[in-house]
């Protein structure tokens, strides 16, 4: 029987590219696990939501956009459950972007830094 000699097959166990390319990917993943742990949706419901996103045309062949689909699936599931409506997420995301702009480089980005923040 021939032996594996490809690059992928030679990776030692546990050594691979980082699981998450950017922190937001890890956070989106962990939120999904946490919300499932609280019983807010079943894992079957989650798989259906994720499947609906990843089978949309245009998914990258190298899989680099996987967590973008993950996030879209999470948003649509939360919207359908009435837990986070899309307009609210849109507005809050804009607030975070404004807060980031208003935060000097090197300082932590806080939502309070949003100049439009209603207090």
């Amino acid at each position, binding site marked *: 029987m021939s032996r594996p000699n490809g690059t992928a097959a030679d990776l030692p*166990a546990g050594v691979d590219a980082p699981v998450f390319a950017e922190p937001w990917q890890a956070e989106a993943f962990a939120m999904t*696990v946490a919300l499932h742990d609280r019983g807010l949706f079943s894992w079957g419901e989650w798989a259906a939501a994720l*499947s609906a996103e990843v089978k949309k045309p245009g998914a990258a062949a190298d899989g680099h956009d996987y967590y973008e689909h993950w996030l879209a699936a999470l948003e649509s599931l939360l919207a359908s459950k009435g837990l986070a409506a899309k307009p609210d*997420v849109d507005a809050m*995301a804009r607030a975070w972007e404004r807060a*980031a702009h208003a935060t000097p480089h090197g300082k932590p980005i806080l939502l309070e830094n949003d100049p439009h923040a209603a207090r």
Partner: protein
Amino acid sequence: MSHDHDHDNELDPFAARVRALETILTRKGLIEPAAIDVIVDTYETKIGPRNGAKVVAKAWSDPDYADWLKRDATAAIESLSYTGRQGEHMQAVFNTEETHNLVVCTLCSCYPWSVLGLPPVWYKAPPYRSRAVIDPRGVLEEFGLTLPASTKIRVWDSTAELRYLVVSMRPAGTEGWSEERLAELVSRDAMIGTALAREPQQTRRPA
């Protein structure tokens, strides 16, 4: 996405949306930021293919355990304290000279997290998900694994409810090895089915 470094901070749109969800869900009391950090740390550092390698090595060493793993993988794996979070069932599929097993999730990216950690990028990418079923032999060749024509390839399609762990054949020349040493022969890819167990001479032993 902006790569302009001259001015103030910028959040890319995905990061901003994730923060927005976190803010909304935290305010509703549905998530706690500290708990999110714990989950990230667990999956980045504590759960990984070492867990599955211990299951396979135990099955190689202990015929009773192998038998249990064949009949009720969920319970046999849980007995080593590797418990799935999504209430999924596990099935162990054993490679033989006649049949090689390969795992895919054509639907999305279902994967046995409790024993393998999170899936590699290629497992989640469209080419593997679509081609593993249509042309498994060709896919394996791309992984550098050429099986004899007489070996059948059986492809298992994971679901949210049922995940698979491939148990490779134990390599020759490993008689008398400890489970710990055997586990070093079992790679993540071997447990997905895109590789075989390593041969004894392929492992690096600490001096």
